[in-house]
């Protein structure tokens, strides 16, 4: 990844110089800290809030009532690592948050899960977790619904069946590819 960042930046600067984009690139460079501030402000403060609430949800053991629903599914995806209670809690929260389209909660629980998986040494499950989150399958894409509503769409949910199919398919394909590569 170092190489992608390193050579990518060299390549983009050269391309920018060739296409005479110096002004735009310098502007983008100077804009970076402000973009980072905006991103961190939203991300970290939301993470703090959701982590606080997540602690309460986990302490209440509420998730255990939904075990019958998520345990078989998570066992198929992640294997035996879900026998660890902390890992199971984080992975199930991540799955629920992704499905409900709660981006920050998904990030928060995903970060918790990945640190636990690293601690307990589950490299395969780390890859599966990351790929599932890059696919970002959601049954409630609230952001898109809000945008289409703001544009006064006649059919707000017209995109929904297609994105549901695509999101579901690429998630399954991603999991299967990893399992095939790792011969699980």
């Amino acid at each position, binding site marked *: *990844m170092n190489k*992608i*960042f390193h050579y990518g*930046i060299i*390549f*983009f*600067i050269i*391309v*920018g110089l060739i*296409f005479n*984009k110096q002004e735009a*690139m310098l502007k*983008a*460079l100077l*804009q*970076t*800290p402000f*973009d980072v501030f905006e*991103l*961190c402000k939203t991300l970290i403060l939301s*993470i*703090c809030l*959701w*982590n*606080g*609430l997540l*602690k*309460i*949800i986990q*302490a*209440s053991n*509420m998730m255990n009532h939904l075990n019958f629903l998520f345990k078989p599914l998570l066992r198929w995806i992640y294997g035996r690592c879900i026998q660890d209670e902390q890992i199971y809690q984080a992975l199930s929260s991540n799955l629920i948050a992704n499905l*409900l389209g709660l981006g920050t909660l998904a990030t928060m629980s*995903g*970060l918790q899960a*990945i*640190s636990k998986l*690293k601690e307990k040494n589950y490299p395969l499950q780390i*890859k599966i977790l*990351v*790929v599932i*989150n*890059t*696919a*970002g399958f959601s049954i*409630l894409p609230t952001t*898109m619904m809000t*945008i289409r509503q703001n544009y006064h769409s*006649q059919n707000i949910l017209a*995109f929904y069946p*297609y*994105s549901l*199919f*695509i*999101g579901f*398919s*690429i998630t399954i*394909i*991603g999991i299967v590819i*990893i399992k095939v590569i790792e011969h699980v």
Partner: protein
Amino acid sequence: MSNLILLIILWSFLECAYKKIPIYEEFITGVKEGMRYLMILFPSIMLLTLWVNLFLSSGFISLIGTFFIRFFSIPLDLLLMAFTRPISSQTSLIILKRIYDHYGIDHLYSLMGSILQTGSDTTLYVVSLYYGSIHLKKYSYTLWLGFFLDFLSFVFMLCFYYLGMIS
């Protein structure tokens, strides 16, 4: 949706009250733990944003867009969206809004843009954030697999379009 989330929170608060779990301490501990992520995530977010900003401003994206457009009978903006979606969600959203303004929200191309935006997540951001949080620099094949899945979601959308399944 709002009801569901509020009900989950209410349910867990009630269960904590029943089990006499100290909610205040749990919440404060959670917030403090959340703050720790600032120091862990900040450096990788800074580098990622710099990379993305230079990538988008270099003109490279328009170059590959204009090169590939000859192979597809779709607007250039949709193709640019497909390229930017795995890298920057904000940028692809700006392009999507441009498509909405140009064609109208209920046009076929606007619908295709909406599908593209929701079909997958920002791969580069997710991969560098997750691996950055555990200080792992080697992403193995996950980044490329993520990009492949984004490509696949674009292919699915094109198939729907060429097969006349989107109207």
